[in-house]
């Protein structure tokens, strides 16, 4: 096989020996050398092909990322609530009202329209943000977000919005069990109220900061994480809660000393109930009543003392406002 190692000036015998030297090297370990030659071309080829493929994949991923990001941005932009939104503005009043209601009791209040069963029903249909908390926690200035996180729809809210027909242990217990079950029935009967925690869980995803964070995402993993987070956010419930015009706050005063505390924490104590009209920025209802679980049979008290007291109090307040109108 000719080689560039030789030239015309070389003696043919010398050229032949040099060519033999090349062949000799090849024959000495022919498969090893063939493998080496193959690798010398295959490996760079594979590397180049992989690089091209990876670059293509990268372009595709970049395009996909841009598309997903744009979609997410559009989605987030569409769900944003402007800072001037009335709901958002009302949220700002909550802390002030909470401080006010947790201060010295300002006396019972009952707006006249609440005594009209139909107007009461219309009022409650305006939607309410519900918060139940210990009075001491609210008084010591705890953040309302923290208090809201520990508050959920309970037996008081259920019985206040959908009171039982009569104040019997059986009727109350039925309502309490519905509240404890937390099922669709509870959701339906309390559909005009939203736990304040919902607002604070969903509100971050409805503001400009969230869109800014989405826009700053520059890799697929971050975008995917933001998508997942956005999907998990309770946006419809929050948006609906922001439309609420009322603030229903229930504050449990400290328990009476020397009183027995039940297994679920219930004990004789005073409870403040305030229904604030956030639009008018005034209280519609304010009550302060004592609850004590001693009227509950022991077998039931063990599990339902707090629920029955709460439901009984709600029934009593609604009873004081007049007969309910087609709660169910």
């Amino acid at each position, binding site marked *: 096989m000719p080689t560039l*190692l030789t030239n015309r*000036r070389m*003696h043919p015998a010398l050229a032949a020996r040099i060519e033999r030297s090349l062949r000799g090297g090849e024959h000495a370990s022919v498969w090893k050398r063939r493998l080496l030659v193959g690798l010398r071309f295959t490996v760079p080829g594979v590397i180049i092909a992989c690089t091209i493929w990876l670059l293509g994949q990268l372009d595709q991923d970049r395009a996909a990322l841009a598309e997903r990001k744009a979609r997410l941005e559009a989605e987030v932009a569409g769900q944003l609530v402007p800072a001037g939104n009335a709901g958002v503005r009302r949220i700002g009043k909550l802390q002030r009202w909470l401080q006010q209601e947790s201060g010295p009791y300002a006396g019972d209040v009952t707006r006249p329209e609440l005594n009209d069963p139909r107007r009461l029903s219309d009022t409650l249909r305006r939607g309410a943000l519900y918060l139940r908390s210990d009075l001491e926690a609210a008084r010591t200035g705890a953040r309302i977000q923290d208090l809201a996180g520990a508050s959920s729809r309970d037996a008081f809210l259920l019985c206040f919005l959908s009171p039982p027909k009569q104040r019997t242990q059986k009727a109350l217990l039925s309502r309490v069990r519905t509240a404890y079950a937390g099922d669709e029935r509870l959701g339906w009967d309390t559909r005009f109220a939203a736990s304040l925690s919902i607002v604070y869980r969903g509100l971050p995803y409805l503001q400009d900061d969230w869109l800014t964070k989405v826009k700053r995402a520059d890799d697929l993993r971050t975008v995917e994480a933001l998508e997942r987070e956005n999907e998990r956010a309770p946006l419809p419930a929050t948006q609906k809660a922001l439309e609420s015009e009322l603030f229903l706050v229930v504050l449990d005063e400290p328990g009476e000393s020397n009183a027995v505390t039940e297994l679920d924490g219930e004990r004789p104590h005073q409870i403040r109930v305030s229904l604030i009209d956030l639009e008018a920025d005034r209280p519609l209802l304010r009550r302060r009543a004592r609850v004590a679980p001693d009227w509950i049979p022991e077998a039931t008290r063990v599990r339902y003392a707090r629920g029955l007291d709460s439901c009984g109090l709600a029934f009593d307040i609604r009873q004081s406002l007049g007969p309910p109108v087609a709660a169910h």
Partner: protein
Amino acid sequence: MLDDLSAPQVLDAPQTHPDLPSAHLTPAGCPDLLNGRGRSRLALDDLRTSVTLAFAGGSAGGLFREALAQSRGAASNWSASAFASDLFLAQFVTQCLPVRVDGREFAADTGHLARCLASPPTDDRIVSHRRGCLAELVERPALRRALEQVYLSLRQYRSLLEGASGSGRWDANRRRLDLLKLIHETFEQLANNFHTATSGLRRLADFAEAVRGGETYRSLGDLLRYDQNFASVSLKVGVGADGRIRGFELLQLEEDQQNPFANSVLRRWLVKLELFVRGYQFSDGEVMAHLIDGVFEGMVDHTLHFIELIVDIEFYLGALGFRDLALQAGLGVSLPDFSPPESPRHLSGLFNPLLLASQPRVVPCDVTLDHHATTLLITGPNSGGKTRLLQSLGLAQVMGQSGLFIPAAGGSICAATSLVVSLLQDTHADQSEGRLGMELMRIRELFQHLPPGAMVILDELCSGTNPSEGEEIFELVVKMLGRLEPQVFITTHFLSFAERLRREGKIPGLTFLQVELGADQAPTYQFVPGVARTSLAGQTAARLGVTAAQLNQLVDANLQRNAS
């Protein structure tokens, strides 16, 4: 072998030394400095692979020694087992054949030298060839000096090839280029320094010239020039007033474009690319490696002969070293004449070379015999030099028939068909017989195998039994040996028996030498005709402190020491 020597390979007329018989020469193919036959003694096919591998990457050493151990020597009728150990041949080679160059002694392959001496060639033309070379080396010191330089180059080549030094320390191509350079230098030395030789040394020049005339050698030279002097640059250096260099100016750049190994820059790059595609490294070193391989492949067959050439040179330098040793001791050596069996023979100034290394003064002697088939009975006192004479005679025969200088200032010898020497009488643990029994077994074996015209050397024959019975066996052996017409040298202390044989004169060819005694009855280490009258055991005993008075004195001292 004779056919080989007379094969029609002879291109030139035989070159002979004027003072010596015609040395048969066959030129070119192989220098064969040892035998002058023009044939390598090595298994070249196997050796080629070994040398090529050693050239490529070095070897574990011993390549030359192993190749020579399996080499085929010249045909010989002699059996080394019959004389080598009794003559201390290995010791003789080590001590008496020094290879010295510029006062520095080099370790020669003594095994090869001993094998050469133990196998004197049957063909007298080989002997003549060796003698011719030696004679010319003595006559022309310049040739000896040239041979020594070739020897140094070959030793360096062997050392580098076998990887004894340098391998692994240098760049592989550099090492191989150094080897090629040594090969080139060696051939230049051979061709330039031996072309005026008239003896077999001329073979070296013929061999080198034959190689130099070929393409392979020209390629070798081209490659070395390409490596060492491919381009020359002429610079003009500007030096400032402060002596500092201010700048360079390139005056001229010359490239040896006629060199067949020279390529353009582009072609050199393409060559590297080609090698890469073919699975080699992309480097200048890889290119050079293949050029070196191509050149060496052409030269390898010629360089194989270096392996035997180096020991051949050791053979001659060792002989010259022996001559130097003898001359320093005031002794003479010579290339003996070869006499026909019926002619008288004479050795003048014969000395024992084994004494050169151990004795401050070596006394030479003269030995004369009427003809070859002579039985010489040597008598004399103990420590009178009888055994040393036997060694001298044996070694002189070995060296003479090997074509070397003999340890004698002059004389003639008759070529013996074989040599049997029995000097040692050591007892071995595994021997089946006693001393006499072992001696008799060797005598029986001697009669069984000894060819006519051999040389036999026996020291104190039948001394292991009582004299009366020993003398009978002695006489029987001497009579029977006569039938094989050998040249026999026997020493004995059976003085009365020897005197009776001399007086009766019944055994033809039996002659007698005795140790000459001086005026003080001390041996002069010379030998004169006749039979000694005494062994002077008393004198020897007295000299060594074994008299009654001296022994009594020793016993008294011993007892006194033990009592205290």
